[in-house]
């Protein structure tokens, strides 16, 4: 049985996966939609829509969940101050971090740290299995129309807002 070329959808999936991997790898850096769209070989305006079609959430929300997952690990595994954890995972203010964390996880970063202990399994499994699921709570960040044109980065958004 001969292999068949990627269908258009499979090719799209593969390019979206590269963009998602870029967020996984560079979660702590300022990332904007044009940068991620370039990874996926799409325009910025197309990227947000297609990413959501493939993964069921916006790039911004995925990046939020990635950052919060990393924050959960740092809160569980280290004694770094919550403010430092917020900065380490890509947030520019404690307020935005706490609000986003509570929105996604359901409890505050401090409450989470108190309730969870370190676990000793390979980090990729921790990352995959502790990634907070999309909850019923709506996104609290910028509206989609703004994300489609500006940034998926918390840092960038907050720097711009100053």
């Amino acid at each position, binding site marked *: 049985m001969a292999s068949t070329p990627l269908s258009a959808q*499979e090719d799209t*999936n*593969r390019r979206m996966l590269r963009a998602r*991997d870029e967020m996984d790898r560079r979660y702590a850096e300022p990332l904007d939609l044009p940068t991620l769209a370039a990874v996926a070989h799409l325009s910025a305006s197309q990227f947000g829509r297609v990413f959501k079609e493939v993964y069921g959430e916006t790039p911004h929300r995925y990046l939020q969940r990635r950052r919060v997952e990393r924050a959960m690990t740092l809160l569980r595994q280290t004694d770094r101050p919550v403010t430092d954890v917020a900065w380490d995972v890509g947030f520019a203010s404690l307020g935005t971090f706490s609000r986003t964390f509570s929105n996604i996880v359901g409890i505050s970063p401090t409450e989470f740290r108190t309730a969870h*202990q370190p676990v*000793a399994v390979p980090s*990729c499994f921790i990352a995959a299995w502790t990634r907070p699921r999309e909850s019923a709570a709506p996104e609290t960040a910028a509206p989609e129309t703004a994300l489609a044109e500006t940034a998926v980065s918390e840092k960038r958004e907050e720097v711009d807002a100053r």
Partner: protein
Amino acid sequence: MNSNHITSLHIRSVPVLDQDEALDFYTTHLGFEARDDIDLGFMRWLTVGVPGQDTSLLLELVGGPQHDESTATQVRELVTKGALGGLFLQSSDVHATYAALRDAGVEVTQEPVEQPYGTDFGIRDPFGNHVRISQPNTATPAQVQDAYEASAQ
């Protein structure tokens, strides 16, 4: 031996979308040895493995008759979305392995990170399957757990 008489993990299937491309990736980039490459008529039985180790990977083309067309399409989509399992390999020099793969243009999902159990990084095969490569340190599981707990105090 346990009561089920199972002695080893012999073959593990990896879903691929192009067997030639898969064979090139797993042998050229990951250093696996080609083992069976047999045209059975109904399928190409293609296996590779780490030299010196018995377990083989079956580079299995998605789309065989065990799946209807709709299911095969779904599996291909899951592979390309990175939603199916993955491999966990070990290296004797994880930084050298990383450098070679990076320089060869392999997709890196995470640069090497020091962990209490060793150092590891992640890549994708050409189809979206996740491959994790680590170099364990000499810590026992108990010592790894202690290191995690100590870092949290």
